[in-house]
């Protein structure tokens, strides 16, 4: 098929998928057709030539509505592309739409959405969550067909650009039975990413296989002058993984059937492992939520109804106006996290919560650094539960939901690269294996991930 033919076929598939699973906030059919025509005329064939790409809706796309899943940005149209979008388009990727998400990334099940933003349904069972906050990306990656021949080359039909702060790639990847890749912090430019927590946000990828997730990842890697926190990386060749560690604290609270699937997959790999303890992880969830909400409360102070986002007629002073806009358009979860994050930073509480959380984070980073001197990789279940039903989620308290991030938070807090790889099913729902490698060792991570994938043979 030519690029224009494969794009048209993908658009047909997109409509069917979105009707069934409501995973897109915005679809960009005309834009995709225009890009396909441009690629047909151009002689250049980049690394993503003709592959359609969905983009999580907190990544700015010039001229295409970008909502971050929130009602306060439901009318926001960026005037520029995020650096990752520029890189994807330079390599021939075709943006097909913006995937739905929890507002600003605040969630594990993609149910915290602003008015008018859809909640995605899991393609394995539409009464269940696709995970969050990148639920739309997870559902789309699971639902699109596997491969197509584009310009005489077999290529993935679709790949998804996603983002993680505390586990927002791993959760939907595990729940939807696809591969999710979260890079080391600094590997990928955050220029054009709508902030949740600047010291934790990482743009990553999803695909049906490790190779697919890697294919998109390698296009978006690299230093960016517009992002001070992006890194120049001296690539090291992939190590052969000879010894892995399994951290006991990351198995606590995990469903028994998921543990069974986890241990079965470890056996299939045949890799020697040691079970070890990392006591500092006892504080990981608390430390993460304190830091993330503190940073979020600062970042979200920019939404005041003046320069962008929801606006109304002025009444009263600037405080009255700001408060009226924010109170009306922020959701319950946005208000909860902003207030929590404000509280932990205020005088009298900052030392007890925020500064302690920072110290714990340093300790956890240090402990992981020591571990990687002895072990080549760490393994854990991706999530402690299978994708819950929507009515089950509505009965959970906030603290119960936050606790379900216990597997994903440690590598996210320590800014380590990690993969979620599907390894089997429990009660007909997919479960994932989380693979973690040392900072900036993506080469080892991808090779080991492919090795695990070939041995586990998930279908």
């Amino acid at each position, binding site marked *: 098929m030519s690029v224009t033919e494969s794009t048209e076929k993908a658009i047909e598939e997109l409509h069917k998928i979105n009707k069934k699973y409501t995973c897109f906030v915005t679809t960009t059919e005309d834009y995709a057709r225009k890009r396909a025509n441009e690629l047909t005329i151009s002689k250049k064939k980049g690394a993503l030539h003709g592959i359609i790409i969905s983009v999580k809706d907190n990544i700015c796309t010039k001229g295409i509505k970008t909502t971050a899943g929130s009602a306060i940005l439901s009318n926001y149209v960026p005037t520029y592309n995020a650096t990752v979008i520029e890189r994807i388009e330079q390599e021939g990727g075709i943006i097909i739409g913006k995937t739905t998400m929890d507002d600003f990334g605040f969630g594990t099940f993609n149910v915290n959405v602003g008015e008018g933003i859809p909640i995605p349904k899991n393609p394995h069972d539409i009464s269940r969550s696709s995970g969050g906050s990148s639920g739309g990306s997870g559902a789309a990656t699971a639902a699109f067909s596997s491969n197509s021949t584009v310009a005489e080359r077999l290529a993935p039909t679709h790949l998804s650009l996603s983002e993680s702060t505390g586990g927002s790639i791993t959760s939907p990847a595990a729940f939807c039975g696809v591969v999710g890749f979260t890079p080391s912090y600094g590997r990928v430019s955050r220029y054009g990413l709508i902030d949740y927590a600047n010291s934790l946000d990482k743009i990553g990828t999803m695909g049906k296989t490790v190779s697919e997730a890697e294919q998109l990842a390698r296009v978006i890697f690299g230093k960016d002058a517009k992002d001070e926190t992006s890194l*120049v990386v001296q690539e090291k060749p992939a190590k052969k993984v000879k010894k892995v560690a399994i951290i006991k604290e990351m198995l606590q609270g995990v469903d028994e059937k998921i543990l069974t699937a986890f241990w079965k997959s470890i056996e299939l790999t045949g890799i020697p492992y040691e079970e070890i303890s990392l006591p500092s992880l*006892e504080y990981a969830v608390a*430390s993460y939520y*304190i830091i993330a909400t503190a940073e979020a409360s600062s970042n979200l102070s920019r939404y005041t109804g003046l*320069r962008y986002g929801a606006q109304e007629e002025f009444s009263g002073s600037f405080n009255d106006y700001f408060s009226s806009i924010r109170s009306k358009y922020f959701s319950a979860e946005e*208000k*909860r996290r902003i207030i929590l994050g404000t509280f932990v930073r205020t005088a009298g509480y900052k030392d007890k919560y925020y500064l302690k959380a920072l110290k714990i984070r*340093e300790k956890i980073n*240090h402990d992981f650094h020591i571990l990687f001197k002895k072990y080549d990789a760490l393994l854990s279940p991706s999530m402690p539960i299978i994708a819950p039903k929507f009515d089950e989620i509505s009965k959970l308290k906030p603290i119960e939901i936050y606790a379900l991030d216990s597997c994903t938070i440690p590598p996210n807090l320590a800014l380590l690269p990690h993969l979620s790889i599907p390894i089997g099913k429990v009660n007909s729902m997919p479960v994932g294996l989380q693979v973690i490698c040392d900072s900036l060792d993506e080469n080892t991570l991808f090779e080991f991930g492919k090795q695990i994938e070939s041995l586990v043979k998930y279908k």
Partner: protein
Amino acid sequence: MIDNKIALRKAAKIARITLTNEEEERLVGEIDEVLQVFSKVDEFNESVEESKPVTERSFREDKSEKHIIDPFSNTKLVENKKFKAPKLVD
């Protein structure tokens, strides 16, 4: 702990969020529950060596750059190429 509405209202005021009575009733319990769990971080007393930055600060030349983004494209609150804003004081 955020065990009373006064502390909740103070944080909400700083955050420029006005809560309804119903929201206050709900949030004071939810946030107190969350903070009770999170207060375990206060038990942590180990000394920790601070990590060092992995990059050096980089600077660009102090020259103004051509403005290529229209700052007013996402707002109706514009007058004479300036952002309109509410009164500072009522």
